[in-house]
């Protein structure tokens, strides 16, 4: 509560609807910028016009005039959930608000999370209240070729009801491929393909191979004079896969079991994709293979349930073991299909911190490292001049069960502040 003295003014100003963008001075007892330099000392972050203007570390910082002062015990960059269904899979969990899995065709490369994204979904608000300011929202785990993810902010400065375009950092950020139990359970039960892991791999390889052939066909047509009467027919699925086989759009392979992770590496290498691994539940069993592949891992929530054989070997220590093995890691919350409807990145990082990862590294994993893995580190993930002013303020160690998020800033404006 001591840390809250600077809030009285803020509450008055922020309540005004005709809000002119404010400039903030965030005073921290323990500042984790996740930019260069030592972390955790006292410091001051100046915010102007939605961006970080300056960062000053060291004790006895005086906020300059003209800035609204916010004080907190711990201050970190806004957290980044690198793979979730929040925004397209709603809290109510009824058909009306579930738009994450187009399970009508094992290849839905042509779909985009962008087109299902509900900016007013309350789960986004919940995530924001726990310090998450950026999410990569991806199609669910059912289709071998599931479609395109996008990267979004969880709030937009100055808008209570933003459009998805206002929230988007990248409208299309990756193509999602799913391996393991989910695709075969979805289609095998309906006597459709895939019914086995073999077929799932084959569907993915086919799609990638077809995309290459499609590209060659169009190149050939262009080379031979672009005669409209001979133009190849367009295929939206294959077109969506073109940037993937060209290595321009990252591929995300979602895999839980060690052999499925290995299959992902096999396919990724075969087609020379720019790819990363997601979930990676049994990654700790094959760290050598993952390190050899040189790919980053978006690690599934450590508190995930043992709800199937492929997640039965989940361990709280997965992030710590992979990090120790020199593998670039970030954390993700994925899809939950029951209670809780979404895992909370802050809580997952806390359990990882307490199980070998350590506090500072856990903060880094869900901020700077996550931004780097998603190639959005030019904008978010650290508190450095010129970056988006996405900031999380806490009244204690961010990961302690009994700490609170005092306030969250997105794009330099307060998206959440604790009322009590």
């Amino acid at each position: 509560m001591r840390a809250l003295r600077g809030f009285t003014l803020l509450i008055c100003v922020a309540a005004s609807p005709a809000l002119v963008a404010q400039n903030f001075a965030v005073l921290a007892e323990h500042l984790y910028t996740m930019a260069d330099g030592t972390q955790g000392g006292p410091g001051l972050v100046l915010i102007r016009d939605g961006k970080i203007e300056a960062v000053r570390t060291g004790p006895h910082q005086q906020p300059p005039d003209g800035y609204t002062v916010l004080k907190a015990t711990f201050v970190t960059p806004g957290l980044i959930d690198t793979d979730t269904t929040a925004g397209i899979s709603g809290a109510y969990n009824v058909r009306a608000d579930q738009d994450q899995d187009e399970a009508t065709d094992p290849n839905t490369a042509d779909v985009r999370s962008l087109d299902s994204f509900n900016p007013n979904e309350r789960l986004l608000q919940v995530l924001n209240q726990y310090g998450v300011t950026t999410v990569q929202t991806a199609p669910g785990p059912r289709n071998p070729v599931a479609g395109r993810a996008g990267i979004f902010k969880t709030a937009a400065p100055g808008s209570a009801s933003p459009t998805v375009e206002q929230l988007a950092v990248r409208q299309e950020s990756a193509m999602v491929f799913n391996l393991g139990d989910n695709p075969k359970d979805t289609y095998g039960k309906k006597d459709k393909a895939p019914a086995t892991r073999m077929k799932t791999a084959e569907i993915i390889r086919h799609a990638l191979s077809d995309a290459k052939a499609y590209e060659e066909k169009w190149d050939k047509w262009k080379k031979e004079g672009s005669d409209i009467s001979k133009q190849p027919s367009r295929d939206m699925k294959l077109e969506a896969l073109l940037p993937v086989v060209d290595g321009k759009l990252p591929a995300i392979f979602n895999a839980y079991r060690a052999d499925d992770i290995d299959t992902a590496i096999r396919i990724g290498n075969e087609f020379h994709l720019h790819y990363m691994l997601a979930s990676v539940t049994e990654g700790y069993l094959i760290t050598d293979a993952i390190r050899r592949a040189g790919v980053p891992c978006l690690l599934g929530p450590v508190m995930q349930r043992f709800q199937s054989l492929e997640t039965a070997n989940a361990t709280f220590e997965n992030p710590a073991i992979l990090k120790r093995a020199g593998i670039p890691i970030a954390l993700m919350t994925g899809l939950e299909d029951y209670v809780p409807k979404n895992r909370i990145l802050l809580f997952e990082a806390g359990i990882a911190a307490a199980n070998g990862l350590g506090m500072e590294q856990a903060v880094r994993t869900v901020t700077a490292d996550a931004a780097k893995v998603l190639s959005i580190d030019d904008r978010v993930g650290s508190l450095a001049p010129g970056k988006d002013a996405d900031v999380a303020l806490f009244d204690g160690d961010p990961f302690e069960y009994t700490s609170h998020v005092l306030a969250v800033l997105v794009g330099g404006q307060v998206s959440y502040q604790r009322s009590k």
Partner: protein
Amino acid sequence: MRVRTVRSGRTTLCLWALLCAAIAFSAQTSAAQATLAIRGAKVYPISGPPIEHGVLLVANGKIVAVGEEGKIKIPRGATIEDAVAKVVMPGIVDSHSHIGIIANPMAEDSGDANEGSGPIQPGLRALDAIDPADPNIRMATAGGVTTANIMPGSGNVMGGQTAYVKLRGNTIEQMLIPGTIGGMKMANGENPKHYGAKDKAPMTRMEEAALARGIYEKAAQYKAKWDAYNKAVTAGDKTAKQPDRDLDLDPVVEVLEGKRVVHNHTHRADDIMTALRLSDEFHYRLVVQHGTESCEVASELAKRHVPVSFTIVDSPGGKLETINLDLGCPAALEKAGVKVAFNTDDPITSSRLIIRQAALAVRGGMSEESALKGLTIYPAEMLDLGDRIGTLDPGKDADFIVLSGPPFSVYTHVLETWIEGQKVFDRSNPQDLRYATGGFGVGDRFPASPRGGN
């Protein structure tokens, strides 16, 4: 055991002499070893304020003494365990769990919690489906759980008889707490309505309540018949006709007689009121299980002294009746004078993190004192076991845990779990550690019993 094989008189005598000597010897050593002293830890007796440098004395599975170091006399020959800078508190009581009945890993046939063949199943006993080798039970001890109320699921209006168990032993008989008969699981709200999809009852909350009233009315009539019969027999009437025994109605009669508490899955405020309405009508004892919106009707609960066994999940929703989940609810209940316990509803949340449930309630504003009670004495009372477990007091079962630091810190680990003076979990043992963190092979049912086949 060996005595049984002895036949000839002389050998018998000789062996008896040896045996007596052996018994005398072992009695002597066990008397010396029997007392265990945990020394130096911060001790939370729960029945009183924490003791900074405490001593806990244990013998014959019971607590002998608890107090300040220096004030408690440690008997000569006692085994002394140094626990300086650690924390000791009572073993945790999980008042709502499905360990052993929804086994790990979850697969198509590993779930035995919901008998989906009909909504009223009072004759079912959880104990007939609990697998003592389920790894989830070991994982629960890794979270500090020593006692659990293992229940049928919430798919039925009356789901069956619950089992009050200690988390030890290879058979359900070894797990069951002697003298207990368990509670009765009931559910209202969304879950039992799944029958509606099959064009069966219940399809609505109205029918759920009607089905519940029906079974209680039936049991009341059954009880009246037996009461009349017993009265006649006592009066010497030899012509009195004995009513037929009904295995389904006997346990419902136990509910009506107050011998069996009803554990009612109920989330929404109006569903909680329906549960209260039924318990008012049939005068049975009730524990509100989950109670997501219970703070909205806190005064109604307080007025009736009905406690809440609360489940906290990390985000709201996943189903309509949990959409208003709020970390502040346990604190609001505390303020209204309602006793709150924290449960795992394992596998909904992991038993390894049961302390986290209470810690998140502290985040929501509850006092640490009530949150600690919510892990120990309050759930013990909800299972009618408050005189036996739930605090560290002389005479109670020696169920306790040793923590590496403050109970509500994310960085604190459960180091040891003890049930009736026996250590059942030790984090320093790599085999046990796997149950605390998870990992490859934790799902094996008998990891410690290599059979040497092949």
